[in-house]
């Protein structure tokens, strides 16, 4: 993963830092942002190879808004691998489908277009495994 650029969008600086340390151990460069707008701006500016985004940033559905906005940002936004992170369990994630949110641009019930989902806390081995799978 040397020379790969990874963006972490998470409002919990402790988790972001811990994940950053693990990913940096592979030689990747890690950038951390704390909210949707800053995350989107950083993604479009730096075009990272992988994006990890938390679900609650801090609002419960911010992660979904981030993914939806990113996927509508041209060819790069559509293809960049995105890992959704959450303290909620996989079972609580409603099959990884968009929830019903008033005024949301996404269609409730549609699958969230992500590459992987990781529950927090994420053991380093699992995080590295997912990153390796997605970055090749």
């Amino acid at each position, binding site marked *: 993963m040397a020379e790969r650029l990874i963006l972490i969008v998470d409002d*919990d600086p*402790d*988790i972001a*830092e*811990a*994940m950053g*340390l*693990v990913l940096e*151990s592979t030689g990747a460069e890690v950038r951390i942002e704390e909210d949707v707008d800053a995350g989107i701006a950083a993604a479009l500016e730096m075009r990272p190879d992988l994006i990890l985004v938390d679900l*609650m940033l801090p609002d*419960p559905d911010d992660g979904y808004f981030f993914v939806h906005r990113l996927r509508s940002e041209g060819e790069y936004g559509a293809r960049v691998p995105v890992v959704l992170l*959450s*303290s*909620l*369990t996989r*079972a*609580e994630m409603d099959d990884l489908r968009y929830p019903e949110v008033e005024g949301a641009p996404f269609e409730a019930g549609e699958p969230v277009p992500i590459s992987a989902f990781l529950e*927090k*806390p*994420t*053991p*380093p081995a699992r995080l590295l495994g997912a990153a390796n799978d997605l970055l090749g």
Partner: protein
Amino acid sequence: MTDPTSTTDEPRLDPADPGCHHRGGAERELVARIQWLMHLRWAAAASVIVFGAFVVHLYRTEHKVAYFLGILGLASAIAAYNALFTHYWRKMLESGHPPRTRAHLFANLQIGVDLLALTAYALLTGGPASPVLSHFVFHVIFASILLSTRAAYAWATVATGLGTLVIFLGAAPGQLAIVPEGILLGRFPLMVFAGFVALVYLSAYLATHIVQRLRQHEAEARRFLSQLQAKADELSQANQNLQSAQMMQTAYMRRVSHELRSPLSAISNSLQVVGEGYAGDLPDRAEQIVGRAHGRIEDLLRMVNDLLALSRARSTRPREYLEPISLPAVTAEVCELLGERAELKGVTLINEMPPELPNVLGDREEIVQLVTNLTANAIKYTEEQGTVNIRGREEAGQVVVEVADTGIGIDEDELPNLFQEFYRTKRGRDYQAVGTGLGLAITRAIVDQHGGTIEVASKVGEGSTFTVRMPQGGPGSQPVAG
């Protein structure tokens, strides 16, 4: 008749309008019967020709042609005014639906004109001896059905007047009578008159009485229907409130779940990252302490997860939240999820669920948790080279799932306590220190919420079998969700 284009606040009549239900069946009946009366009149015009000609032919000895022409003229007049009525009614319907008073006026007009035509018909076909004299009754019955009781008696009086005219005018010697004069002399017309008056008023009385009773019943039915509708509305509102409360509860639980787990996740992640040396090398002693701290945090996370799951499993959910679930599909998913864990432990995990089992109606998240808990438990308490076998069958309208292991088993005296919160068997604690003692309590709560049963059979040193029975539910037996 008033201008059909005039506007009015009166209720309007439309047989196809469901709103008519609220305005009453009498109005709907009026519209339908007015149309029916007009259809019937075409047949009446035809029968006037056929039947009238037959009677004239039978009774008359002279002036037959004149009477035939009279009959023909009458039939044509009936057809002509019926055409006018039909045209006018269609126009009224096209210009919006007729207000109630206009429909009543129209019904009265038709009955009046019909009675006049019937008078002429009875005179032409024998006066007091006419076979159609009794037909005056029909219009009295129509009026009883369509109009008010007062209108029905008014039309009975009109019919009596016109019938009297027919009886006495038709009986006058040398006038319109077509039967031998001898018959019409003496008391015959008086007897016919008496019988006729009795017939007409008795018909009016019977018909209005029956119609009144029917209208009372209809009003009661409408009142009942409206009460029922009000109850249904209340129920629907209560259901909406329940669903809204359920959504709020779900959102609240998600928030609580997140808020409780987030800091623990951060601590766990940080400790593990530090402990594994990603933030730099640690002295051995420090690494051990951090490792133990990480283990304790993981225990706490498990406890929080299980308490949240237990709370969720014990909250009642409306049936709208349930979906048809294929247990074989869920089992396959769980086996895939836990396959690696079993493999790492050297336990053989065998899924023998027949794929054609009927669905159960359930909360998918919880059904997955139920099968996961039982399977994970079985793997956890089974030693290397042991086996965990998941079987299924259909039995008396229930879907049965069995999770059988060749594990350490449970002492018989501990079996009754197995599903209590925080209860762990002594043998279990000795074999595996980690555990919250909530897994089987959660499993039991999920089974209870789904109307199922769970039982366990176990022999120390040989293994345990957990048997879950769930009622079949959902459309068909095809796997729907997995």
